[in-house]
């Protein structure tokens, strides 16, 4: 029997909280393992992170490599690169995946250079070719192009994957995988900048990446009152509110509501874009959405190329009217229920 391919996932944690993208990566590897034999290994490092290893096993990893040390908490690029290089040299994975997070996007390239191998950035899909090479789908040029990257001659094949585009397993199992303790070597590189302070607040609302319905606004909203109209529509739809960079710059929305290249990637079932011109820096973050509705008074706005339904009109009329119509619809539904 052919030997199973070894897929490793760098499971990212800060202050003991596992990043969701790590579980999404486990889910994706499990899905790929239906095509070919794959053994999925999650690497988790830090201080007291063993419980996170259990989470990764329950979520579908076959095994977890746990590296625990004071020197690995908090995250610093030099010790982490040194540790991951040691792990790769020992276990020789075929694939190593990172989330395209703040941490992953600086760590993965350095590791790839150290291991003299290739990597691709911000993948939105992964697949396998006939020879068992990993196919890495990468949007570029503001999502105007989609490149398929592979790395046939070097191992491991390293990729960072955009958070939110892959799904974690819906059904979890009881953890039956094993945990391997990786002893942090005395040669660990502890050089590099010193961490003085880590400031991280918990996101309050349902994160945009998980929202099923998103109402997003852009520069065309024009002012705070206009933004309020958008929020009212979002409320009635139980939607999360997203924004483009200009809307964040204007102060109508918070930084963590930003969708696009330097913001979040979302794939709700319904995306309603209002007053959004549709430059590629935004659309790269939303073009995996289900139904896309665009409302803009400029008929030439590129957003209409990304929309299933385009409404060429002033949103100040359409949006409040739509909110009212939906309210009535919901009311009539509840009346029907009352009749029964």
């Amino acid at each position, binding site marked *: 029997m052919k030997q199973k391919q070894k897929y490793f996932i760098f499971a990212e944690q800060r202050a003991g909280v596992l*990043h969701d993208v790590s579980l999404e990566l486990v889910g994706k590897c499990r899905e790929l393992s239906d095509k070919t034999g794959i053994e999925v290994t999650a690497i988790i490092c830090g201080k007291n992170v063993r419980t996170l290893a259990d989470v990764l096993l329950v979520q579908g990893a076959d095994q977890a490599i746990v590296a625990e040390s004071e020197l690995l908490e908090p995250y610093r690029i030099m010790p982490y690169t040194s540790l991951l290089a040691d792990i790769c040299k020992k276990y020789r994975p075929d694939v190593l995946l990172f989330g395209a*997070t*703040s941490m992953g*996007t*600086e760590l*993965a*390239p*350095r590791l*790839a*250079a150290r291991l*003299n*191998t*290739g*990597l*691709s*950035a*911000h993948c939105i899909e992964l697949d396998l070719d006939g020879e068992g090479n990993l196919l890495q789908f990468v949007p*570029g*040029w*503001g*999502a*105007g*192009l*989609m*490149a*398929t*990257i*592979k*790395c046939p001659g*070097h191992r491991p094949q390293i990729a960072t994957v955009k958070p939110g585009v892959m799904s974690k397993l819906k059904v979890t199992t009881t953890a039956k995988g094993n945990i391997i303790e990786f002893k942090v070597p005395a040669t660990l590189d502890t050089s*590099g*900048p*010193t*961490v003085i*302070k*880590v*400031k*991280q*607040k*918990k996101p309050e609302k349902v994160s945009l990446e998980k929202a099923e*319905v998103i109402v997003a606004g852009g520069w065309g909203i024009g002012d705070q009152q206009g933004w309020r109209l958008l929020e009212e529509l979002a409320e009635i739809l139980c939607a999360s509110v997203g924004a483009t960079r200009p809307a964040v710059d204007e102060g109508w929305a918070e930084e963590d509501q930003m969708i696009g*290249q330097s913001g979040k990637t979302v794939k709700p*079932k*319904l995306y309603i874009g209002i007053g959004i011109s549709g430059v*590629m820096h935004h659309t790269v973050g939303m073009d995996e959405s289900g*139904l896309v*509705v665009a409302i803009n008074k400029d008929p030439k706005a590129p957003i209409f*190329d*990304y*929309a299933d*339904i*385009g*409404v*060429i*009109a002033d949103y100040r*009329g359409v949006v409040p*009217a*739509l909110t009212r*119509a939906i309210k009535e*619809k919901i009311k009539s539904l509840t009346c029907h229920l009352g009749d029964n």
Partner: protein
Amino acid sequence: MPDPKYWAQLKIDPETKILIREGIPTILNPLDKHALEAALQIKEKTDAEICLVSMAPSSAVMVLREALAMGADRAFLFSDRSFSGSDTLATARVLSAGIRQIGHFDAIFCGDFSLDGSTAQVPSQVAELLNIASVCHVESIKWSEEDNFIWVTQKIEHGDVTLRATPPILLAVTKEINRPRHISFLEIIEADEKEIRILDNSGLGLEPKTIGISGSPTQMADLILHKGQREGRIITGSLTEIVQQLTERLTQSGIL
């Protein structure tokens, strides 16, 4: 990098799967302006020398002139046909070899990513090949001259990290770090006197098998123009008609 205004004109050679960039003007990557501004602000306080380095076709001289006009002192352009097709690792090999040739440095400033490829991979890889530490996603830099510490804040999800670094270090900056200065016509003329040295691979001496397409571990298996596959239906009519059609459609798709 190619001017984003012209990206809609990009074409792909159907045979080679290589992007045809001819006829598209080259501009300075916007984030690199922020990186240069960050360096200029330190130069104003410390009398540092700022040296620009770039790997690009020789037409990039114009872009370097613009950056020299902003206040950089001199520029190096690493340009050779054999560099073309380099992936991020091969690019990092060229840049790090070039930087080694220039000699001693305290810090390398660069943009967090380029707007075209957007891989954000080159900064960390250059630092690795030069065997120096690096911080990406840098939102602020304070250079304290007395003790030679560099205080850096790095953007992370829902927050930031404060780091204390020492030279030599590579810092990859975000657009939040500053607002790049504008340049006057006079400064552009003055920049004409500043030196731009163009080095090809005979000057850098890299093994041909480590650069260009053959030196790149990653390969382009396919490249497609990513056109949205959307219905593209436009709803028109009176306000009432528009709203009615919208609610009908949302009901159909099971959202309402």
